């Protein structure tokens, strides 16, 4: 028996001198948060919970006062409630109201709420943490990362996570067609629910299956607050929420859940339209609600760390053994310590190479691994596990804000002076501040740029320069262990070259290739094949296709100073406007200096060369993140 909710029931019932009237009480922030009410745009309230069972009154979703009256009526209806009774279903509402109303139900015996009590005891929560599962660009639907809660059973935080529970909010989708799935997800066609799973399943899924690091941040909660959190999770057990990919997603609902136990903090307003998981972690840090983070390495991260200290010869042996475990005898010629190091890397590498088969516990794979395990067990060395150090630089709590505003002043020869305005809703591009964000990638949703530009012999114009619905780059490096494909994909509308001066056309642009990194990733070089489809009515048949090689380089001189150079060369399917050629070179170079995490200076030049006709522009601007 861990702790009795029965005792807890009366522990914080400071009896109020006078009972407030129900109307006032039903307008209190706490009540609104317990029922997830949000102000509607015009007037009144609406709960974000979409399932009928979450409310006790008929119009509970829209009427906080009626819901409170009905709650009081039902809470007063039994002294010894059973599992189906409102008291057992909504213990936190019951406890809170009991306190606020001066303890009218002090003698109610809730020991009949057996399912609730067993839930409470099974979780046995003493501490709670918020978990961030890293960006996963290989899957566009979880590219932004994911957040969940972890409830811990031990006061002692060292290495007992495997005994904890994870509280996860996820959508229940039943679709086979990815398109249907995507559209429904965007429009709220799937119900989302909270569920509790042993945390080790989450570890396996994320770190072993998808190679994503997990970050955990302990919430600054007192024990009674942890109990309240568990109570509210229980209350939400039956609640379903329409799931929306961008706003009402996992991170949003976790924040709404935390708002219940942090009554004086506003944790959701910022995220009503867009909840980026890392941004919610950043917000919690800003509010002082979480402690310094801890990182759980993915199989890949661990492999990289373990192999970092090994001589090249040993690495080769380790890889050879990981690929052909029956060659494990090769370590016999090594001294015990060296052999142990090699075998540790081999084990990790084997798990990395065979991750999916290991997750599904494929018998042949398990058998294949046996010689490495046996050799390692026979080796007497026990290596002290190194603690993962210096994680602040990578911690998503330190990431920049996703929304970016830019104002640039520049000059384009052949035209004249220009002023450009840019707005981006989220989240990160290749030159944004690096701390806590995507390491070698870009993930932008919704970026729009307008410009005011002077023209020779004509009046100045205001025009759309660029609009992208999304832009994703995944430039993971090729190295000794991995050879991932690099790719990028973007779509939107932009001014199309060789057509009229300022008419935009729709585009889809994609590349595939390889990336190498030098000097610990400070220099990144991608060799890509690029293809672009432009759609505009000035082309013959209304479209044009451009293909060609593209070279991309990024230099990270310091965390504050980054520079990117993009060199694509295109052959187009048509030459337009009698330019006599269908080829173009479109270099672009940008350098950014970050004064702070939220303010940057950008210097950018763009050019286009068709034959030997060059158009070049230069811009200098400020970017502000909020």
């Amino acid at each position: 028996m861990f702790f009795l909710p029965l005792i807890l029931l009366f522990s914080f019932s400071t009896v109020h001198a006078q009972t407030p009237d129900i109307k006032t009480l039903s307008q209190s922030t706490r009540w609104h948060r317990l029922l997830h009410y949000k102000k509607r745009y015009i007037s009144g309230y609406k709960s974000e919970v979409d399932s009928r069972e979450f409310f006790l009154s008929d119009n509970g979703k829209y009427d906080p006062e009626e819901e409170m009256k009905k709650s009081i009526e039902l809470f007063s209806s039994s002294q010894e409630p059973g599992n189906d009774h409102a008291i057992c279903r909504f213990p936190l509402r019951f406890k809170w109201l009991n306190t606020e109303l001066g303890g009218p139900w002090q003698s109610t015996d809730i020991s009949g709420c057996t399912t609730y009590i067993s839930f409470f005891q099974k979780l046995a929560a003493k501490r709670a943490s918020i978990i961030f599962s890293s960006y996963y660009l290989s899957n566009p639907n979880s590219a932004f990362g994911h957040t969940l809660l972890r409830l811990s059973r031990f006061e002692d935080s060292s290495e007992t996570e495997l005994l904890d529970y994870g509280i996860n909010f996820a959508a229940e989708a039943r679709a086979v067609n990815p398109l249907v799935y995507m559209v429904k997800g965007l429009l709220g066609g799937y119900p989302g629910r909270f569920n509790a799973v042993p945390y080790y399943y989450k570890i396996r899924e994320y770190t072993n299956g998808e190679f994503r690091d997990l970050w955990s941040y302990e919430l600054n909660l007192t024990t009674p607050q942890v109990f309240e959190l568990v109570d509210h999770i229980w209350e939400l057990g039956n609640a379903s929420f329409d799931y929306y990919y961008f706003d009402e997603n996992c991170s949003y609902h976790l924040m709404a859940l935390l708002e219940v136990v942090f009554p004086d903090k506003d944790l959701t307003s910022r995220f009503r339209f867009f909840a980026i998981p890392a941004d919610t972690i950043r917000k919690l840090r800003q509010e002082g609600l979480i402690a310094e983070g801890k990182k759980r390495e993915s199989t890949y991260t661990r492999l990289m760390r373990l192999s970092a200290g090994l001589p090249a010869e040993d690495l080769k042996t380790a890889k050879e053994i990981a690929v052909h475990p029956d060659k494990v005898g090769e370590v016999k010629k090594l001294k015990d310590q060296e052999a142990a190091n090699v075998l540790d890397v081999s084990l990790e590498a084997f798990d990395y190479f065979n991750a999916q088969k290991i997750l599904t516990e494929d018998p042949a794979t398990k058998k294949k691994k046996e010689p490495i395990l046996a050799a390692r067990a026979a080796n007497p060395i026990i290596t002290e596990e190194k603690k993962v150090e210096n994680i602040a630089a990578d911690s998503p709590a330190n990431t920049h804000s996703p929304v970016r505003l830019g104002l640039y002043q520049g000059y384009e020869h052949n035209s004249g002076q220009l002023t450009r305005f840019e707005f981006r809703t989220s989240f990160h591009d290749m030159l944004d501040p690096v701390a806590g964000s995507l390491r070698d990638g870009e993930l932008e949703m919704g970026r729009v740029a307008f410009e005011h530009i002077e023209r020779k012999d004509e009046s100045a114009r205001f025009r759309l320069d660029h609009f992208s619905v999304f832009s994703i780059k995944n430039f993971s490096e090729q190295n000794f262990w991995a050879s991932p494909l690099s790719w990028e994909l973007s779509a939107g509308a932009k001014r199309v070259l060789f057509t009229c001066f300022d008419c935009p056309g729709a585009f889809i642009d994609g590349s595939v290739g390889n990336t190498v990194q030098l000097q610990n990733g400070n220099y990144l070089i991608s060799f890509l094949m690029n293809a672009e489809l432009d759609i505009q009515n000035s082309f013959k048949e209304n479209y044009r296709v451009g293909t060609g090689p593209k070279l991309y380089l990024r230099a990270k001189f310091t965390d504050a100073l980054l520079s990117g150079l993009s060199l694509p060369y295109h052959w187009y399917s048509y030459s337009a406007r009698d330019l006599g050629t269908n080829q173009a070179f479109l270099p672009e170079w940008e350098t950014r200096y970050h004064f702070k995490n939220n303010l940057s200076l950008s210097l950018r030049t763009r050019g286009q060369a068709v034959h030997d006709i060059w158009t070049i522009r230069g811009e200098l601007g400020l970017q502000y993140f909020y």
Partner: protein
Amino acid sequence: MRKLLFVVAALVMTSSAFAAKYGSAGCGLGSMIFEGDQTWWKQVLAATTNGTGVQTIGITLGTSNCDSPAPLKVGQAEAYVEANKVALANDIARGNGETIVGLSKVYGCANTTDFGRALKSNYTMIFPTTAANSKEITHSINTVAATTCNTQI
């Protein structure tokens, strides 16, 4: 036109290549589950999000596939071993690691280092073949814990 078709096909193929990897991976659409996908963690998620008829009130704590609670008692060790088998074999072969710390808590061992060392030296007894099931593994671990940690099984 053929060029265009090629590019469109390439883009569509890339996006469906991503689609094929949809898992229960993360926030947003990615955390949804596809029918017909039989990998274990998707089954687990499917099971835990299904809202079976068994428990009509409140949150599910795992059903059929995922009925194993995170253990706190020796009697629950088997579920832990079952779910962490791969990491456990690695850790026992190495003689330390997180799964051993967890087991040490479950068995109430005073000294995790000694427990790790004892498990390591009994590796071949605990994992006589790769086909050993979690019941057999747990039984062997019980024996090691009984002598090293003085745990009453």
